[in-house]
């Protein structure tokens, strides 16, 4: 809630609203006359005595406007309150309790959703004779709660299955307490938005009703002002301020409330937040490595947030040769996925590449515009992500996915189908699945369809980000075997990004280990596995319990990696490292230096002798 109020939209809305509330509260002080005092000369032009002129009946328009603020805000506030209360009660109550209660309440909500509100209000309002505004407020609330109830119910339904609610049930919490103290606090912004929406609806409906003469027309509100202005022919007699002033006031309050709601929207949808601007193209860096198919040079990338830019990838250079399998291993937050998206220019705002080049066969993809980049993607370099299998459009068949891809890149349809059939067969998916929809496929089959699609245009490189992570071990192994076939038979280069180091050892030519946005070690797979140099790599390898041998107590790596926003003065692994050298490792960022053939490591324990030697620590680490 506090964060919502930090939004510029919300602040502007609040200021306008505050002014109106102040005017309403101080009406007796601000208004020069009583709003019902009709002793002035009718239809006077604006003057110092009558700022907005007078009405046909000789009332001061400015005084009416000021006093009308009270009545109008009262309607807005009370309608918001009543409609929201009803919506919360019916929506959250039904949603959480479920069963027959929910069925009845949901049916009721649906009935109220389809009842044409305005005619009902008009008919009911016509029977009201009291002078109070309350009946009209109640009628509007009663016809306007259903939309809110619907939204709150669906949110409750999804929260009800969330594990923290199950956990509350498990410790024996009562249903009422669960709704009030576990569910409600997570719906405050939705309820606030609902309140504001209902208030706008209330103000507009009340103004509309009063304009056509329903309710108590002798009460002073902006709506009744409009009614009298209309019925006394304000425009014909040239008193246009009589209509304009209350009309503009209604519009202004509506706008202010709308701005508040927009502030709440920004909170739940960060993309709307100000500050996400188009960035200039990243500063190019380096030159492509000789003999490399893909050469990443000093990539720096991250995310633009309201709190300033975050850096997820801190200067990564990597190269992939033709036909090579490069495995990249790292834990959550190490920047490996950001790097994958950045490498192919796929990072979308708020993500941004700040610096660096990604040379694909000599062409810097990051120096191109999206339109210039498009022909290279999929044709030269395709990609398979963890989410890819769920990105298959559920309403079109596999065949149409194939044809769409072919059409976008000018491949004749017949040839595309032929290639796809052969690929599916290779991946042990019968050809008739070409006519299946994605929801008819299991997770493993979907990911294999995605693999086949990624190979359709015979790219030179496939970038894979956790392609097997959501799958079971057996399916994962089968897909890894198929990836091995792609590598061996088709000679495609593969960059394979995963959190699971153990998956990489068997299949990779080279492995790069990422930590906190940097590559800390890189080398031939067997070498990295048998002789890891970086303390982080050593800890990572020790973190996999073995399948054989005596059982013994093993330890992971204590602590957790630095956050994305953190400034690092030394080695990013310093805080968790068991072999750290105080005064060295926390002072300077270690460079990635060669240790023997093709093996590089960024660690002060190796390379140049550190100024303060700590031989025991070095011995332990080795």
């Amino acid at each position, binding site marked *: 809630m506090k964060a919502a109020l930090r939004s510029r939209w919300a602040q502007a809305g609040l200021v306008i609203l505050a002014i109106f509330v102040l005017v309403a509260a101080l009406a007796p002080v601000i208004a020069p006359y009583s709003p019902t005092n009709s002793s002035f000369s009718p239809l006077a032009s604006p003057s110092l005595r009558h700022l907005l002129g007078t009405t046909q009946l000789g009332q001061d328009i400015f005084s009416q406007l000021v006093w009308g603020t009270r009545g109008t805000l009262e309607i807005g506030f009370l309608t918001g309150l009543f409609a929201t209360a009803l919506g919360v009660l019916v929506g959250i109550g039904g949603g959480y309790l479920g069963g027959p209660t929910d069925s009845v309440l949901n049916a009721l909500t649906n009935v109220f959703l389809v009842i044409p509100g305005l005619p009902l209000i008009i008919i009911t309002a016509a029977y009201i004779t009291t002078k109070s505004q309350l009946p009209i407020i109640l009628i509007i609330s009663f016809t306007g709660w259903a939309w809110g109830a619907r939204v709150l119910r669906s949110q409750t339904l999804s929260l009800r299955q969330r*594990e923290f609610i199950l*956990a509350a049930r498990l*410790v024996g*919490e009562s249903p009422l307490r669960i709704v009030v103290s576990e569910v409600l606090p997570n719906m405050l912004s939705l309820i606030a938005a609902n309140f504001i929406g209902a208030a706008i609806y209330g103000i507009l409906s009340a103004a509309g009703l009063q304009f056509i003469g329903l309710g108590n027309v002798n009460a002073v509100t902006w709506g009744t002002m409009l009614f009298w202005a209309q019925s006394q022919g304000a425009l014909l007699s040239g008193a246009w301020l009589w209509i304009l002033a209350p009309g503009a006031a209604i519009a202004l309050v509506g706008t202010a409330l709308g701005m508040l709601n927009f502030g709440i929207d920004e909170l739940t949808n960060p993309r709307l937040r100000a500050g996400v601007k188009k960035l200039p193209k990243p500063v190019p860096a380096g030159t492509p490595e000789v003999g490399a198919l893909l050469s990443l040079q000093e990539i720096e990338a991250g995310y633009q947030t309201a709190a300033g830019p975050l850096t997820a990838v801190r200067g990564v250079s990597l190269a992939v040769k033709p036909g090579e399998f490069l495995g990249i291993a790292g834990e959550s937050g190490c920047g490996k996925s950001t790097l994958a998206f950045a490498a192919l220019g796929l990072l979308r705002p708020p993500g941004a590449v700040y610096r660096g080049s990604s040379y694909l066969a000599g062409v810097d993809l990051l120096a191109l515009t999206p339109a210039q980049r498009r022909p290279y993607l999929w044709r030269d370099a395709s990609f398979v992500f963890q989410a890819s299998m769920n990105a298959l459009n559920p309403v079109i068949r596999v065949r149409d996915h194939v044809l769409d891809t072919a059409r976008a890149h000018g491949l004749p349809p017949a040839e595309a189908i032929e290639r796809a059939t052969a690929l599916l067969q290779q991946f042990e998916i019968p050809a008739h699945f070409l006519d299946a929809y994605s929801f008819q496929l299991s997770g493993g089959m979907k990911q294999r369809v995605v693999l086949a699609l990624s190979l359709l245009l015979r790219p030179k490189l496939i970038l894979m980000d956790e392609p097997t992570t959501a799958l079971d071990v057996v399916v994962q192994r089968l897909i890894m*075997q198929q990836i091995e076939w792609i590598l061996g038979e088709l000679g495609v280069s593969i960059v394979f990004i995963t959190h699971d180091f153990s998956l990489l050892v*068997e299949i990779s030519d080279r492995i790069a280990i990422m930590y906190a946005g940097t590559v800390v070690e890189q080398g031939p797979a067997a070498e990295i*596995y048998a002789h890891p140099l970086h303390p982080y790599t050593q800890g990572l390898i020790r973190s996999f319990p073995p399948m054989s041998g005596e059982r013994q107590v093993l330890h992971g790596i204590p602590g957790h990696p630095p956050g994305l926003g953190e400034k690092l003065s030394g080695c990013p692994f310093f805080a968790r490292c068991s072999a750290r050298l105080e005064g060295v490792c926390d002072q300077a960022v270690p460079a990635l230096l060669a240790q023997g053939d093709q093996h590089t490591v960024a660690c002060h324990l190796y390379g140049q002798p550190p100024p303060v030697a700590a031989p025991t620590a070095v011995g332990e680490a080795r």
Partner: protein
Amino acid sequence: MPVLQLSGVNKVFSVGRFPTVRHLRVLNAVSLEIAEREVLGLVGESGSGKSTLAGVISRLSLHDAGEVRLEGALVPKRLSRRQELAYRRRVQLVFQDPYASLNPAKSIHHAVARPMAIHHLPDTSADLLESCGLSPAARYLQRRPFELSGGERQRAAIARALSVRPRLLLADEPTSMLDVSIRLDVMNLLADLREREGLSLLFITHDLAAARYLSDRVAVMYAGHLVEIGPAREVVERPLHPYTQLLRQAAPKPEQGLEAEHLAVAGEVPDLANLPPGCPFAPRCPKAQPTCREALPGFVQVAAGHQVRCVLYS
């Protein structure tokens, strides 16, 4: 006396609406015991029914047939509020996803102390957090989940489960959402709690190596059936059921050198609404015989405490 005994537990989920209701047989005659201070590993792939079993034991959902006994006493399906609370004090569950299992709007203190208040226990939340490795506790009590790392959240979730001092802790894939480098220490915490508090533990995982690391015994599930159960090292190192053998083959084993075993298995997990009449694994099993497709094989005792549901051993 075992802490928990299940015999012949069945669970059917009905999905869809009339006239296309499908009855998924998620648990089929599951019988097992968990002894005092024992860690039983439960291994299986997604859809094998292992999480549903945890749901039934924790009474988040009720079984359709069979018996659940807690400390020897039969647990009826309907419980009064008092009985329900008494059950909840004895059996607790740790969820897989620490990002979803803590209320984002509430402090860690709420998560840990509220269960104590429900059960009229003194508030020992600070000590509890310390004993779960969140130290100093004062730094964590007033924080909200988003201020904690994944590992810290899971420790807080474990602390919440322990706040009512249960006898049996169900841990449903407690490490699979965590980073590799911190998984071991969360498993070590669970092992520690067994030692210190005398807890019994059902450790659900898809990872054979993790099951071997933490468990005394390991049970393997496939398509809602228990197919093998026995001492952890025996089951994982010398698996007998062809399905357990397949799981072992499929797991990455970097320590065995770089040459991977080539898997030759086709097909997918059977449709739980249309289970084959015999052994559920028969359609995919390389060693299947005609009899396998006729009737579900019974359990065969192959060694002390090691049972396999497979005709190869009868």
